[in-house]
Structure formats: structure tokens, C-alpha cells
């Protein structure tokens, strides 16, 4: 194995994301129940689970939108509660609901988020051109967002999350409603991010997506982590054909129920 200075530095910095007994309750309902996870730098982590399993709640805690009820979590070494402002500087969130301003063009939506991250104008323009091309939006980037299809909105929403080149990307179902070609372009883009040592948490209902992209997956059900490991390891462990079968076996739920 070849060791580089960058690798050594990353190891010195510790995990990109650490969750220790992370718990979130809404009244009597426990959405996330004592989650313990370490996610490394440059890792794509697939967070899987049926609807209501606690995936989005976990992402919301990591992105500082929700405070944990118990336990703690750090992102790039910053506590999500005590150093929320520092966390916000290093993350990029692509939410499940692709929030965008319909009266702005795709470019203007992205520009706005770049400006919220204080990106210099020249760099911002370069990044927009680059990322629009990467997800196949270069021809439509100057159209009003209200005229976009669901897939286009998803792609623009992904660029909005990544425009500032975050160290940690939280992608909550980024390829929902995309056609196969667009989905493939986003997959390639996510793989490219891994090669740049970005850490990505990816929640998805598409098991082939999780299998294709993730270095490791964690399956959660009713707020608890019930399975963890690289996709192929899990497939081998349960002696099944693919990750979808692992999912059904472990959660007892068909995927369509979860979608």
C-alpha cells in the first residue's frame, strides 16, 4: 500500500463523520435509536432503510437542521450542535425535497448558493460551467427553474449542494425521478467526487445505485442500525444475488413498500 502525505493527514484528522449513540425522539416516537457509525474520508456510505426508518432524520442531524435528543455527532471534527456554524461550512446538503427558487434560472439558483458560501465570482462561474456539464445540464442551465422536469430539478439541486466543493456531501435520494441516462451521469459524478477524497452519505431506495456506488452500506430499520458493511460482503454473507435481497431479508419489507 502506498502512503501519501494526504492520507496521513486524513488519518490524523480522524473520521469524516462520527456518530456516537446518536438518538432523536419526537415525543414518544424514536426516529433514530443510538446510532454508532464512523465514516472515513473519501468514503461513499449508502444509508438504506424503508420509509420512516430514520435515514432523513439522521441526515438532518448531521446537517445541523435537527439537534440530537441524545448522543453526539461530529462532521469533519466539528460537533453538529456545539460547532454548527463550522459544520455548515464543510457540508453540502442535497435534500430529499429539492428546494429551489422557481422564479430563478438553474444558474441563478446555483449562483445564490455559491454566494451563500462566499465563493468568489470567477470561481463560482467556472464551477457552474463544470458541474452543469458533469450532470448534463449545460444546455438548460439558463432556463427558468419553474420550467424544469423533475429530473432536471434534481440535477440542479445536486449542483446547488456541491457548488462550494464541500468535504462532506449529504445526498438524500439525489436520483429520484431521473431518467436512466441522467441517473448514470449523476453516478459518474459521485464516483468522481470519491476520487477527490470527498465523503458522501447517500440515502437511496435504489439498491442497484447503493451497490454500484457505496464503499459500505448501513441498513437501518425503526431507527436502529441492523446491518453494516461493503455491499459485496453483505451479499456474500447472506448468500444472495444482490443488495436488494439483503435488504428484504434483513428488514422483512419489500422495496416498493419502502419507496
Amino acid at each position, binding site marked *: 500500500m502506498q502512503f501519501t502525505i494526504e492520507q496521513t493527514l486524513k488519518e490524523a484528522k480522524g473520521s469524516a463523520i462520527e456518530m456516537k449513540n446518536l438518538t432523536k425522539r419526537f415525543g414518544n416516537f424514536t426516529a433514530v435509536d443510538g446510532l454508532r457509525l464512523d465514516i472515513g474520508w473519501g468514503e461513499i456510505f449508502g444509508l438504506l432503510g424503508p420509509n420512516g426508518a430514520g435515514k432523513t432524520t439522521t441526515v438532518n442531524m448531521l446537517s445541523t*437542521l435537527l439537534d440530537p435528543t441524545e448522543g453526539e455527532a461530529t462532521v469533519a471534527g466539528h460537533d453538529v450542535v456545539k460547532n454548527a456554524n463550522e459544520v455548515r461550512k464543510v457540508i453540502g*446538503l442535497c435534500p430529499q*425535497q429539492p428546494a429551489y427558487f422557481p422564479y430563478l434560472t438553474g444558474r441563478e439558483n446555483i449562483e*445564490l448558493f455559491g454566494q451563500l*458560501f462566499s465563493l468568489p465570482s470567477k470561481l463560482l462561474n467556472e464551477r457552474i460551467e463544470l458541474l452543469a456539464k458533469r450532470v448534463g445540464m449545460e444546455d438548460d442551465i439558463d432556463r427558468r427553474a419553474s420550467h424544469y422536469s423533475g429530473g432536471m430539478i434534481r440535477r440542479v439541486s445536486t449542483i446547488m449542494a456541491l457548488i462550494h466543493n464541500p468535504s462532506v456531501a449529504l445526498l438524500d435520494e439525489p436520483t429520484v425521478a431521473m431518467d436512466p441516462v441522467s441517473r448514470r451521469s449523476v453516478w459518474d459524478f459521485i464516483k468522481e467526487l470519491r476520487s477527490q477524497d470527498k465523503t458522501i452519505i447517500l440515502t437511496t431506495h435504489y439498491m442497484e445505485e447503493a451497490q454500484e456506488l457505496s464503499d459500505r452500506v448501513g441498513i437501518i430499520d425503526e431507527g436502529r442500525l441492523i446491518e453494516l458493511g461493503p455491499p459485496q460482503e453483505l451479499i456474500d454473507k447472506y448468500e444472495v444475488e444482490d443488495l436488494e435481497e439483503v435488504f428484504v431479508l434483513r428488514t422483512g419489507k419489500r422495496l416498493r413498500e419502502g419507496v
Partner: protein
Amino acid sequence: MDSRRVLALVKKNMKKLVRDPGTLFLLVLFPVVLTTVFGFAFGGIGESGPQSFEIGLVNLDDSSVHPEWADGFMANLSEKDDIILVIYDDNETGQADLLQGGIDALIVIPNDFGDSCQSYWSSPFDGSSWTNTSIGLYLDSGSLIATIAVPSIVQQVFLSTLFGNAQISLEVPVDLTKPQFISANAFSQWDYMVPGMFAFSAIFITVIVAQSMTVERSEGLLRRMSTTPLTSSDYMLSQSISYMVVAILQVAMIFLTSYLIGYRPATGIAGIGFALMILAVFSLSCVGLGLIAATFSNSADGATGLAFMIAMPQMFLGTFMPLGGIADTIASMMPSKYVTDALTTLFLRGAAIVTPSIWIDLALVITASIAVVFAGILVFERWGRGK
């Protein structure tokens, strides 16, 4: 506080103003249409004006050796059916009352009035021996036909005082000063309404703020932006600046529209600058009320309804609607009333920019607006943002 983030959000809000038809109509086109319709509808009403005038009088000649001339002049004025005489002890009080619109005109009898009249009768045909003097005359340019009628009435009364009932026209040692605050125009109902139109239009900001905040919240935009380094104060400042700009734009649009249909305010650049300033400050209170409406609404439609309910008292009790009795008392609690009062003093009465009453109005609007916008921010941050 990051100025670049604030500016980015202000630009975003301005794009919404131009590109969102609902916002564009309510904040820009509606005030223009309303101004045009009201201008044509009310432009011809009221030009006949009232038939009697309240005229203030200050007698500086009460310790004269010939007080009978001033007494006679005052008695003759009192006898006129179309004049209600109000006596002041000093010039300052009378001037202040005139500026506040309490009287239509102020006459100042000079301290050598009796001497002057006496000098005429001592040598009626020797002008060189007369003691020349002037009666001071100040007029409220907003007091309909007072500006036209009062100078001639005062001239008439003076001549009848000097010569009795004989109607003659000779050279005399007393003349009238050139009336101040005079305006050649007769005033219509429209002239009275215009100052209220500015505040009326700005109040619609409440509705737009309530709508847009509710939409940004329900669409997940507020949540998404709160995962960036954007602070709450950056966001709220951007909202305040955006709607201040909108208020200034509204003033310009209403002013231009009313000017094109014949409105001529009795003020200059300084007065218009003051109008821009007080409306920009007033818009803050509208932002505050909009935030309160958004806090307690679950949808854009609900926010619109609630915002209208909150804004309605200001629209009708503090702008161009005629008030009296209890309505007047309620209006005194509305910031819009002080905006309209200040603009009426400037635009209708032609008061100078240094007039204390308009600065008192501005101070009240600033105080109320800051209190309301802070209340709105606190309420929204506490109960509205995470709804």
C-alpha cells in the same frame, strides 16, 4: 454579518419582484393602477372648497398710542360671515398652528399699524409723511380656496377699517405682505388623497412578506439555506433591505403616475427625499407584520388572508380615508397615520423640510417600525421558522 450574502438575497428578492406576476402586480402595478383610477375619479371633486375660513390673528400693536385702528380692523374681520377669527398672543403659536393645519391663514398686525393709519389721516395727500408698514399674511396652501380668497378679503376689511364703508381705492400707507405658502392651484379631493396613497401601497408589503416567507418555509428553502453559513440576521437584513427598496420604488411609481395625471405637490426635492425616507422606514413595520402573519399561517393562502386582516386597520385608518371620532383615536396608534400626516404637511401644506412636526412624525414611525420588525423577527424565529 456578511454583505455579499445579504446582497445575493436582496438580488434574489428583486428578481422575484420582477418575475413573479403576483408580486409584481401587488407591489408595483396595483399601486399604479389604484393611483390612476383614484386620480381620475377624485381629481375633479371638492374644488369648490369650504365657504368659511378660520383665520388666526396676532396683534403686535396692542400697546400703541392708537390701538383703535387695530381694534377696528379686528372687529371688522369678526363681522365677516365667511371668517372665524382665532386670536393668538404671539406670532410663534399662530405659525405653529398654521403649519399643523389648525387654521387657514394667519394675519399679523404690525406694531406700527395704528401709527400708520393715523399718519394717513393726518396728511391724506402727502405720502412722504406717512408711516409705511405691512400687514403680515400667511396662508395654508392646502386650505382649498383660502389661498385665493383670503388676501382679497383682508384687503377689503382693511380698506373698510381705514375709510369706513366708502369703497374707494387710493394709495394708502399700509399694504399686505406677499402671502407666504400661497399656491395658485385649487385643491381637489385627489390632492388630499395622494399623501395617503404612499402609505396605503406600502402596506401591501405585509401581504407579500407573509406569502413569500410561508412559501420559502413550506418548500424547504429556509431549511436548505439554514444548512449554509447564512445567519438568521443576514437573512432578516436581506428581507428588510429588499422591501425598503420596494417601498422606495413604490414612492417613485406613485409619484410619477400622479404627476402624469396632474398632481403637483407643494414641496421640492427635499420633501420628496423625506417621503422616500419615511416610507422606507415604514416598510420595516410592514416586514414585521408580514413575519407575524407568516408565523401563524400554514399555507400561502392562509398567510395572505391573515396578512390582509393584520394590514387592514392600517389601510383604512391612517391613509386617505376621512376619519373622525373613535376611528381617529384608533388611527393614532397606526404608524401609517404619521406617514400620511407628514406627507400631507409637506405635499399639501407646502411646509418647509425643517418643520418640527414632520420630524416628530418620522421619529414616531422609526420607533414603531423598529419595534414591529424586531417583534416580527423574534416571533418568526421562535415559532415560525421550523414550522
